[in-house]
């Protein structure tokens, strides 16, 4: 599926790998269970590694592996399920994770700006997605009333001008 980054579509160079399939040469996303089970062997691997975590996974559980990970994929089973927002914020804020955080699953364009403000970098979107809708949604509201993870510059009081583009 295509990826949305900075309001534009780009191809995804990562591959999601089933637990029983061999790992390819290139960038691979595996499950947390596999990451835990094969931690020792994976340590020697050179190609970029990513992990897909379930909504109920607490970021603490992947903390020991983060230094080796280039990507964490979060999943929204339904657009109303907002756990990924807290997971992303926690990865950035508590664990200092600087790699790619990807939102997958049922994500709405209307959530794009909020995901970015929680530290998400890319969104996996269905084929045929119109990136303009997402970019427009992201830029619809340029004022935030609270501190978050995104780049913004405080204006006064609680407010800040958002810099999401």
């Amino acid at each position, binding site marked *: 599926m295509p990826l949305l980054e900075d309001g534009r579509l780009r191809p995804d160079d990562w591959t999601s790998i089933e637990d029983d399939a061999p790992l390819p040469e290139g960038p691979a996303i595996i499950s947390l269970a596999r990451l835990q089970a094969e931690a020792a062997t994976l340590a020697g691997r050179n190609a970029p590694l990513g992990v897909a975590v379930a909504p109920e996974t607490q970021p603490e559980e992947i903390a020991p592996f983060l230094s080796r990970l280039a990507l964490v994929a979060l999943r929204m089973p339904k657009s109303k399920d907002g756990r990924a927002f807290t997971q992303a914020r926690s990865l950035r804020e508590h664990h200092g994770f600087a790699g790619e955080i990807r939102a997958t699953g049922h994500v709405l364009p209307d959530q794009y700006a909020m995901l970015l403000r929680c530290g998400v970098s890319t969104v996996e979107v269905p084929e045929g997605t119109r990136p303009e*809708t997402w970019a427009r949604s992201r830029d619809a509201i340029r004022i935030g009333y609270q501190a978050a993870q995104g780049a913004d510059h405080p204006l006064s009081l609680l407010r800040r001008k958002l810099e999401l583009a």
Partner: protein
Amino acid sequence: MNALTPPQYARTYRYDEIDREFLQERIAEFRGQIERRLAGELTEDEFKPLRLMNGLYLQLHAYMLRVAIPYGLLNSAQLRQLGRIARRWDRGFGHFTTRQNIQFNWTKLEDVPAMLEALAEVDMHAIQTSGNCIRNTTTDEYAGATPDEVVDPLVYAEILRQWSTLHPEFTWLPRKFKIAITGSPNDRVAAQVHDVGVLAKRNERGEVGFEVHAGGGLGRTPIIARKLRDWVPESEFLAYMEAVLRVYNALGQRENIYKARIKILVRDLGDEFTQMVEREYERMPRDRYRLDPDIVAAIGAHFAPPPFAALEDQELPEDPEFRAWASTSVRAHRQPGYASVTISLKPIGGIPGDASADQMEAVADLAERHSFGEIRVTHVQNLVLPHVRQEDLHALWQGLRAAGLATPNIGLISDIIACPGMDYCALATARSIPIAQRISERFASLDRQHDIGECFINISGCINACGHHHVAHIGILGVDKRGEEVYQVTLGGSATNDAAIGELIGPAFSYDTIVDAVETLITTYIAHRSPGERFIDTYRRIGVTPFKDALYAPA
């Protein structure tokens, strides 16, 4: 002065250019979402949470627009505009709710953008009045006026409003989230039955801090909140709130909507919940979330006291009818020579909380003349003029009487809270408004009401408990029993410092007998009361048995 010019001294938060820009962007965004829905780019399932977060509900007969009245505070220009909206886009009425908001029950979808524009003209909106987000913070209706206040909660309620507005992390919570804050040791906000209840207080050095409770709620599982912390310093207020919400957002149930409120998580985790919040709070980069004293001061400037005149307290005029009204509606003010006035929206036989467009305009005018243009909405569905000169009370009463707003029943048995029930609500299992109307007609005699004294009756039309029946002295819950509406009665609830969930008294009553049952409870109380005892006092002293016997004894 234009009718929409805000009065100079009313203590509503004044929008600046940035706040207005934000609101215009939000309206444009919602208009775009409506267009995408109409173009089929959004399914109804996807659209629903978006419209709910803009206050738009689909009810039994029409859309309902729920407008935020932040912490229940309005200025006269805003109330006048609400009246105009009621006249132009509803059927000439608005309905004030227990969450200090107003609902327009007959909204047409195509009118919504125009209604939102009209609200924006007076710095109002419908954002986050619905949906699984942080809702309108409620506070003490006598804030800034009451003598027993230690901290004015309005400043912190506004800070909470701004902080929670389109919060990037907390807009897709497991369920809705309601915060109540009070700055008085006498809880008038039902802090202990809210998702988070905050008590603002001062330490020996006079510094402001907050006692935080979490996990209270009503609905089908009524629970009294758990105290998380005795003292959160002012500067860490938002950090601590973030910590509570983060734990809830990460761990709250999402499968079963009846178990998704924070109260279930707090109940299940117990002290572990407190520990988790503390842990999150300890490790947060606190500088990022620090509430700067400059912010508090700048927002506090919006809530500076109005220029009170130096007056003395006065004797009220002799007029007995006026005095009967004043004995329930007039309340002491911290400033000598002033008083707070509660305006009853509970005329005998009327719909609790309804106000006509004309009445809203009349109250706006009276507020301008007598209360620095400031008005409050109470969680009992009445209005308050917080700062009235005692010497003006008689004139104000006459003005209210002319508008049909001088029913002298505040705090009495006909001052009933009722949810919309079967008359409007798609979830209702029974009628609720007509029960309130019939009880109020049965006890129409004001002499009798005064003799009965303080007694709170709350009515809900289904288990969701929007009418707060659990915390009433006499709670009435309408349920469906094999196609028939029947009414369960609970006794002894309370929403104040001694918060308690009422006790179910026995088998339910029919639509026809429920009013008789209430009357029996009252006659039982009268027969047993000691001098000076309120209904609730007698109930606590003698227990449920005498009431049970009176209700269910064979004739």
